[in-house]
């Protein structure tokens, strides 16, 4: 028999099984992670060229989101502030701090700062910031608690099911128009009361503002 099957074939079934197990596990794990909507850069936290801390500026100083992201109410795009915006304060405050060297250089020379993009929707998604923030959807719904982040990271999955979760039931997320940029705001400290108030008021907003539950393709894709 040894003529037909060389010696190494003895170990073949074990090897095959091990191999199949390893590959199978990798595949399952891969599919588990990559093929689900959860995997959409959640946790992505690149190093930014300037160590800007939202936690300090928003959480401690109390700047409004719109001071820097001034286009968010007008455009589909929420802009990154110009160096000039930073210098409004920083020509007085920490004017020589080394962490701000790049900003000062940009303001003086016009050289742009290469911020790393974190939040991104695919090209075929025509997401519009202005219509969300003007109609009761807070920044926090998609971006998480940016006001507590030292270095911004991708807090939520930007998968289609994430968008649809809210689009199917906007009442659960709508909040008063003046609380959009208050990322810590809650209806009540007691979660049960808050949930109850969200339900009542959310439905009221839906009705009063004629908020539609947009689930057809043309809402986001063109």
């Amino acid at each position, binding site marked *: 028999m040894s003529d037909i099957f060389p010696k190494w074939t003895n170990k073949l079934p074990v090897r095959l099984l091990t191999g199949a197990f390893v590959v199978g596990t990798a595949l399952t794990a891969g599919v588990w992670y990559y093929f689900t909507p959860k995997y959409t850069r959640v946790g992505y936290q690149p190093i930014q060229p300037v160590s800007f801390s939202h936690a300090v500026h928003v959480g401690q100083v109390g700047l409004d989101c719109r001071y820097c992201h001034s286009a968010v109410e007008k455009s589909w795009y929420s802009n990154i502030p110009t160096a*000039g915006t930073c210098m409004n304060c920083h020509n007085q405050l920490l004017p020589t701090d080394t962490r701000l060297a790049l900003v000062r250089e940009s303001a003086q*020379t016009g050289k*742009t*700062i290469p911020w790393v993009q974190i939040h991104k929707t695919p090209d075929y998604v025509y997401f519009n910031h*202005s219509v969300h923030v003007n*109609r009761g959807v807070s920044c926090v719904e998609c971006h998480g608690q940016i006001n507590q982040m030292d270095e911004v990271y991708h807090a939520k999955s930007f998968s289609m099911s994430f968008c649809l979760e809210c689009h199917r039931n906007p009442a659960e997320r709508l909040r008063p128009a003046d609380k959009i940029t208050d990322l810590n705001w809650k209806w009540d400290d007691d979660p049960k009361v808050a949930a109850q108030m969200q339900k009542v008021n959310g439905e009221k907003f839906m009705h009063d503002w004629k908020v539609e539950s947009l689930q057809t393709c043309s*809402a986001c894709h063109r």
Partner: protein
Amino acid sequence: MKTIPPACPEPDTGHKYWRSLDQLSDTPEFRQWAEREFPSGASELNDPVTRRDFVKIMSASFLLAGVGLTACRKPEEHIYPFSKMPEGYVHGVPQYYATSMPTRGTAIPLLAKSNDGRPTKVEGNTNHPDSNGGTDRFAQASVLNLYDPDRASRFTRAGSPAKQEDALEFLAQLSKKFQGNSGDGLCFLLERSSSVSRARLQKLISEKYSKAKWFIYEPVDLEIQRQAASRTFGKSVSPYYRLDEAEVVVALDCDFIGSEQDSYINIRRFAKARKLTNPSDTPNRLYAVEGLMTLTGVNADHRLRVPTSALAAVAARLGSKILEPSGSNDLVAALQPLAEPAKAHEKWIAECAKDLLAHKGKSLVLAGHRQPLAVHAIVNALNNALGNVGKTVVYREVPASSEGSISELAQLLNGNQVDTLVIFGGNPAYDAPADLDWGKAQKKAKTTVRLGYYEDETAALSDWHLPLAHYLESWGDARTGDGTLVSVQPLIEPLFGGVTEIEILARIGGLEKTSPYEIVRESFRGIAGESDEPWKKFLHDGFLANSAAQTVAVEFNSAAALVEIASLKPTAVATKESLEVVFHRDYSMDDGRFNNNGWLQELPDPVTKMVWENAMLMSIQTVKDLGLNVVDHEDGKLLVPWVKLQLGGRELEGPVWIQPGQADNTVGLALGYGRKQTGRIGRGSGYDAYRLRTAANPYFAVGAKLIPSGNTYEIACTQNHWSMEGRPIIREANLEQYRKKPDFVKGMDAPPSPSEEPMYPNPFDKVKGSALHQWGMAIDLNACVGCSACMVACQSENNIPIVGKNQVAKGRELHWIRIDRYYSGKPNDPQVVNQPMLCQHCEAAPCESVCPVNATVHDNEGLNVMVYNRCVGTRYCSNNCPYKVRRFNYFDYNKRPLDKLYYGPFAKRPDDELDIIKLVKNPDVTVRMRGVMEKCTFCVQRIEQAKISQKVKAGASGDVQVPTDSFTTACAQACPAGAIIFGNIADPKSAVSEWKKRDRNYTVLDFLATKPRLTYLARVRNPNPAMPDEYTNMPGSFSEYAEKSGNPLEGHGSAHGAGEGHPHGEAEKGAH
């Protein structure tokens, strides 16, 4: 459950109708072609690269992709903010600037859209006093010229690149040199322009260089109406036609809808007088006399076919008939001998004259630019005698022009009297009259400086070539047709350092101010004063209010008219041995200036529906007489004879195309093709008709001889099937029929069974009643003239790529809106109807049910939407679409090299092309890739934008309904006729709701119960019952229908039983 479509068998008796060139032979190939889902070749891969090669290469690339293991993680992308924000700029929000596009002698007022600094779309400026927001094909396509990778992008000296500074230094030296000798030997060759600044600089330079000479050349000169008016009325005036005031219009070889000056204004005014709200309104009546089949002829109620050279006789005959009663005896005496050859058309002309005389002061006679001054003098006499002057045609004073002609310049050149020739724009080396031998003449100037948009034929002969800036990159000014001053302002810095005409003029003239902005500002100061406020308003509005030229009273000088009439040279009669040749402005290429514009190359000619080239147009009779084999189908290809045409010792070769309705023994040659030196798009398209054109006979000549070569040539044409087969796709009636039965359109198709649900019910039917917005469209076929501006507007708005001639020949064109053109009646004298056809947005959409992947679905506002990411390209939807409006991306046309759009599946667009062409794309519309279906979306991006801005405005309130008629689709916005209305049908106040309530409103193929959101308003013709032609009883297409399915006007109407497929021809024949 389902309704069987009405069969349309050929009636045994009565008229035989003709469908296309093939009808003449009715070949089995044609039968097969007509029955196919896609035209032959469209759905097969039979390119040089075979399927086998494809798979081989693809497997290799898959392997490489696997080995590389690239794209495990999304790449790191950066955001680069401004360091200092430009004032008033919000990233992502488009900005609009009022500007205008200068055309020859006038301008089109525009509102240009800029997306983050790049102009992407132009619309008409609705605030301008003489605009309704409509534009023309050329304005819509002009954006693409801005991003043409083949445009002149460098300064050259003797063909090799030079520095801009050197070129400007050279101009400064020129200026010094001519200041010394007061411009001796300096010649300028210009194009026609209405720029106030140019005229001012011209004057300044003439004062400085008194010996400098000025010449103007336009290969297609639309100034003859002005010249004729100035001569016959004794002062320098320009006519302005108030077509909307005219109840009867007679166009004598005048294609005022398609190729005359400011045709977009003419269309608007004509359509205004053509529209009907209810049966008591009377639309205008259009008589056309012409040799070629033009857009004006297409829209005429009565059309007389005469060779272009014989038109003077018709004009004279019409003239003597009208002038006789008014007693202008010497004019009548002069006209009568001229009128003799038109005796054959006596009845037609007499009735037409009667109609004109019955509409004194409410009629208009027009002559076209191809006709000599004498015909224009007759026309002016007629309008004067009919009391139309001051009513339907007004005259405005314009500065007289004193420039010489190109023939005079050629003489100077040949006499070696030119030291420096400066050519602004134009392209004389290509389009100057052939007998001038311009190539040699230009070389005789010591130095030639050329400012041009392309490095073309003329550039090759010039010593210096300077790149011209696009109008969206330039400062300038112009006057529109009514004389209103409009601004030309830049939206972008010149992409390739281009310079403007006024800057170069100022530099050569050695003037103090050379910046174009300063020059224009200075000119404006001269008109509106020193203050800055009017200037700011001028730039903001795009025009200076109340600056239109005043109309002046004019007095007809019959002695001057007599002189012109006496100067008319008799022309020989065209026969098949001695053919008449007519040179005409092309509907897409103009005179050749748009030759390298892909959108226009691929725009089907509004009449022939041919793309990417020109052919020698002839009538069916002429083709038969000359013994040419009409057309041949081979392997799905459309093959036509290739011939040689000789005229006056010159010759050219080209394909022959049959044009129904063209005069016999006439050959129509479109200008603008066959360029020797052009970009990647224009290369190799068509033949060059200028080679037969002489200075003496620029527009028509008799005496050509045609020699068949026996070869054939493949033509790409988007509509070779000409008949509606008696089906009520376009519904039309004569005015009397319409008055008798205003809802004649109802029940022309087999009625859908009322008890049954539609075959494809709409999932959103339930929300329809309560929804805020339900989008719908209506198209008034009475207003649509078929000009095709909508097609280019759609292409520009929706990022529709061009596919190339080869692909169009296979039926793979991608236009989301097309204009279907049908003929009816006699092949030699057909009636024509046009119908814009686009996605009908059926509520019960057949395409949706058959998609296996849900890639085409409905939305809650009634749109039939395409989800490109889901589409896997089965094309079932297109198969099931009864309107054939779905388009499939057979290849990645956006990634193909411009000159190899069909070079097999792996051709890749070079970076230099891609980088600049992608700038023209609309960022709000997905650029589709290979393998997906696409179609009209009702401009969903505009709908969403309108809703979003209303919601943003509403904020925390319920005011979210988009204001009535506050936006529209690209096609509707571009339409100069106002034939397309789009809006919210859930809003009873909207214009579209109002249109849909009209009695002429109908649905195409309504027996299918697809419930389209797009409906049409039937066409109503207004023929003169006294005329001796066929169409006074009923329109051709209508009698074709009536013969097959019964006449709905005569009681059999609604239940005529088209569904039974039973021809009623026998029964109704007696009625008509």
